[in-house]
């Protein structure tokens, strides 16, 4: 296994909570791994499973979906839709042989900069142990 493997994580962060939380982590100068590439979405409910699959098949080692805590959604129930899709997506990813730790759904409020940093640190650490996904590489043959 590669010793200095650094996972690439695509982070879909909702504008109202998680992205603001990530901003807070930055302005509070909290140190956390730089492995997540954040993509701001209007709501975690915007994260179509197609986007997750596309990230994974285009070279990401993991995907983080982060939104408002249930009950706090800016659009009332967008994050409930996220849970529904995520639960079924997990079952399909199992079938594809993708470890559950690679795709995570987390709730981070706008005031939880500390929590965002912890989530990223924890996920990065887990993926370092899991190693590269390299889904693309298994297409041939």
């Amino acid at each position, binding site marked *: 296994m590669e010793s200095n493997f650094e996972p690439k994580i695509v982070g879909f962060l909702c504008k109202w909570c998680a992205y603001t939380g990530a901003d807070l982590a930055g302005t509070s100068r909290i140190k956390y791994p730089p492995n997540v590439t954040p993509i701001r979405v209007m709501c975690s409910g915007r994260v179509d499973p197609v986007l997750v699959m596309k990230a994974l098949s285009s070279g990401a080692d993991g995907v983080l979906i982060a939104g408002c805590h249930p009950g706090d959604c800016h659009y009332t129930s967008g994050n409930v839709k996220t849970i529904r899709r995520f639960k079924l997506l997990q079952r399909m990813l199992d079938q594809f042989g993708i470890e559950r730790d690679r795709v995570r759904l987390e709730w981070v409020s706008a005031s939880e900069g500390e929590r965002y940093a912890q989530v990223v640190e924890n996920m990065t650490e887990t993926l370092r142990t899991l190693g590269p996904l390299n889904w693309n590489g298994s297409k041939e*043959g």
Partner: protein
Amino acid sequence: MANPKAAFYWAASCGGCEIAVLELGKALVDVSKKVDIVFWPVALDFKYSDVESMPDKSIDVCFFNGAIQTSENEHMAKLLREKSKILIAFGACANGGGIPALANTTSKERIFTRVYKETPTTDNPQGVIPQTKVQVKEGELAIPEFYNTVRTLDQTVGVDYSVPGCPPVGEQVTAVMNDIVAGKLPPKGSVIGASDKSLCDECKRVKGDRKIKKIVRTYEIVPDTEKCLLDQGVICMGPATRGGCGAQCIDANMPCRGCYGAVPGVLDQGAKMLSALSSNFDAENEEEIEQIASGVTDPIGTFYRYNLARSMQRRKKARRV
């Protein structure tokens, strides 16, 4: 002017696409007066060497059905591409991998072990597994290599047009053939013989609120023939599937299984259907949602039944060694 030359070929497929052509009946007789069929293994006696000896681009149109699962499939795809002016990916397997591509949920090794060693009817005490070459006293015998990953035709060679469906429906095939004879073809790369809208768009059933409390499988209920199948908890691929088939399965009170492939503009039929279905789960808390989701017993086989090779992932992730 001489009649256009047509070829038909089957790769990894069930033969249903060939039957779909034969099923045209009288329409086929009419078409056959206007085209010369130069290669058609299912119906006429031609050899591969006959095709090899044809000049390049001498076939005007080749209907190629089936996925690419073996070295023979690949060889014929390349050969027919060379010899044909227009190559048409005909049917679900050539376009999305079809049922054969569900082999991508496992591996060549697992398939061989299952088929040649484990099935109850197998009598193979020496555990013989097919080899590409074997030496016998008469000489060397060779069979094609079986690939680990099933591919679509257009992942193997360039394809000019796609005709989707498992199999493509008769009226659409007739229309396509008449268009070819008349030289009325859209720009290359187009999907022909299908609609540009989803199946839901042409489905006559009454659509309700789409609140799914429980997933039911087709053997568990006799669905109401007027109401939307999704409203009744049956997984119908209609929202994520291209229309144009005339909704024949729906008319037979069976759900759409997605053989016409993704709606235009959709990157991945299966993930899109997963999204459409799960968004309508009628539950708010995690346990209840989990409960409903557990009703989808085979997500890949349900959402990618005909299109796993076309999907962004194409196959199950290879196990690391």
